[in-house]
């Protein structure tokens, strides 16, 4: 009853729609694979080639601030969004449900604080990992008088209509992390991407292990686009190196499940010569499984989480850590402010995606930070460091 009362308060009894004009589009061309099963539907050869080329590209921009750097910039004009500050910036966030997003969001908040003379209000809405809620959230934010909207989409295809609706509302939209299937945002910010991540890890593992050896691939979940691209690039690398991928298992990010899987694979095959994973969350658990079984830890990849970097150094592992840097959470704030200044920005804004290797390991290993902190946060110069991230 109260709901009906609430509705009548609004008494805007005309037919209306929030639907954007264009429907969602975009299709992926599938490639065929071999010993590791069918290639993922997400695999797009052209994107794969482009990302691998970017791995060797030289970025433009200040060398000590990778979050402001751009690979192969293509500038777009933003004069029509020029506006006097201070601004109200709104952010529709897919979720905060894992350490990567937590570290990233803290970095973003710190960037907002660093720019507080130019930002009068920062509104953050957490969609809790639900597409349906994020669509509602974006619609909701459009009624709040934001000067710029930042979106980190939960799913590419399903958030496209909502982002198009936001573009049509006339305010500058900045998308980062996952993309959308539309060109309407002013810029799309992300690092090189999943193909680059998956390729770096897989290439390292197949080069360091004995030829034709046995590789175990550990994945978090099926059906998540960023993770699918990582695996599909790894698959290409493994097929090319002709290594024997003995298993592709899903761990749900659960370390106990990971240990059991690795344990059973060690028992089944006697030895595993390489481990590849699509995210670092269970890297330490995988290392421990080898230790507890009394086996040497084979060449493997992790991510830039400190618990893995620490065990890598302490146990002298043969390892590599491709990253999906959390410093990309700083860039949308910087980009939004530049757009509101009418300055040109690059679209797409491709950030460099560094890799932690044996040579630069010490540079990233900060023993004072918590085990699940991401080394590549680019946050050491921000207000509140290090306490904010602890």
């Amino acid at each position, binding site marked *: 009853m109260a709901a009906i009362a609430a509705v009548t308060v609004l008494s805007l009894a005309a037919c209306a729609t929030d639907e954007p004009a264009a429907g969602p589009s975009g299709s992926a061309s599938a490639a065929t694979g071999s010993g590791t099963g069918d290639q993922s539907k997400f695999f797009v050869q052209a994107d794969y080639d482009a990302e691998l080329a970017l791995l060797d590209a030289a970025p433009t921009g200040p060398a000590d601030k990778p979050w402001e750097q751009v690979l192969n910039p293509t500038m777009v004009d933003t004069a029509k969004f020029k506006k006097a500050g201070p601004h109200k910036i709104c952010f529709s966030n897919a979720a905060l449900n*894992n350490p990567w997003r*937590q570290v990233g969001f803290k970095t973003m908040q710190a960037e907002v604080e660093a720019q507080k003379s130019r930002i009068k209000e920062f509104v953050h809405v957490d969609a809790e990992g639900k597409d349906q809620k994020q669509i509602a959230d974006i619609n909701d934010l459009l009624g709040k008088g934001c000067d710029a909207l930042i979106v980190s989409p939960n799913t590419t295809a399903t958030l496209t209509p909502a982002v198009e609706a936001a573009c049509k509302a006339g305010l500058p939209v900045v998308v980062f992390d996952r993309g959308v299937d539309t060109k309407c945002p002013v810029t799309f910010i992300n690092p090189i991407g999943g193909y680059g991540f998956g390729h770096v890890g897989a290439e390292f593992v197949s080069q360091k292990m004995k030829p034709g050896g046995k590789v175990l691939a550990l*994945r978090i979940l099926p059906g998540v686009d960023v993770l699918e691209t990582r695996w599909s690039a790894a698959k290409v690398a493994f097929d090319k190196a002709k290594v024997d991928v003995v298993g592709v298992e899903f761990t749900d990010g*659960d370390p106990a499940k990971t240990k059991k899987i690795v344990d059973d694979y060690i028992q*089944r095959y006697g030895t595993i010569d390489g481990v590849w994973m699509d995210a670092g969350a269970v890297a330490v*658990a995988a290392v421990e499984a080898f230790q507890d079984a009394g086996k040497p830890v084979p060449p493997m990849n992790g991510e830039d989480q400190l618990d893995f970097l620490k065990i890598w150094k302490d146990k002298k592992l043969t390892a590599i850590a491709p990253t999906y840097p959390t410093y990309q959470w700083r860039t949308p704030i910087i980009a939004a402010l530049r757009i509101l200044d009418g300055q040109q920005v690059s679209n797409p804004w491709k950030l460099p995606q560094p890799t932690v290797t044996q040579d630069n390991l010490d540079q990233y290993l900060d023993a004072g930070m918590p085990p699940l*902190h991401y080394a590549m946060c680019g946050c050491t110069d921000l207000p509140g460091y290090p306490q904010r991230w602890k």
Partner: protein
Amino acid sequence: MQTVQPRSLPLRLPRMRPGGVLPILAILAVLLVLVGIRQPDFLAPQSLMSFLGRSAPIILLAAGQYFVIVSGEFDLSVGSLVTAQVVVAARLIDSDPSRTWPVVLLLLAFGALVGLVNGLITTRLRVPSFITTLGMFLILVGAVYLWSDGAPKGGLSEEFRRFGRRAFEDVPLLGRVPYALLVLVVLAVAAVLLMRSDFGRTLVAVGDNPRTAELSGVRVWRTRTFAFILSGLAAAVAAILLGGYSGVSFQAGAGLEFGAITAVVLGGVALGGGRGAVVGAMLGALTLELLFALMNFYGVSGALRSTVQGGIILLAVAVSATRSSSR
């Protein structure tokens, strides 16, 4: 999957006690044979010991869940309780070995307290336990994320992790016996003895028919509350072993409540209470763990696993339910 086995089995086993452990033993035996064919060295003492050790947490959770279920209730909060315990332990210990024992005691107290709250809300406020423990699940998950700012902090000491990760080395005949296995054996024997005591009989009577139990002088609310406390304690021990086995993570307890309930039902215990044995519940958990290992050994595709698991659970429960209901 349903059509593999006809409903009326041609082979007539001797009439079973409803809630008996024979069906689950049969399933377990079949799985063991299947594993043995594929991976004969799995049955060697050393690897069998290590398998039992890593299965100890879920077996204990199943035992804890059994007490609640046989008394006619549910406990959906155990998975979140395990996660909360592991995260709390890491933050409080903060890699300082001298804090290990105080934190272990604190975790046990915390588990018992959550059980007590579940029990009192269910029995005194008459909230169905499904709702009480679902609410508790939401509260614990939310609170632990809130408290830790979304990412686990601190670290577990090697002393704490020892319980779930280390073992007695060089034991004659058996080789390596995990501490977790020892904990499991002690607590399993205690659970069986408890079910043979007066309390055990009362617990089953309460689950079977609370009215009758009440009329014959049993304080139903007290018995059920005690069952919840036992489940909370089991979750605390499981958390200590699990945290030791695999370290800190928000995923530590994810989904364990459904695993434990499934294990209990597989073990021939009736949801709704009054029927089944604690040994059956623990064997049910062992069966689920063995099924997991079996799929690893046979290389069942990661994505298809839930289908296989769901099919086997439905088949097993349907077969035993139709048999025992033709009383």
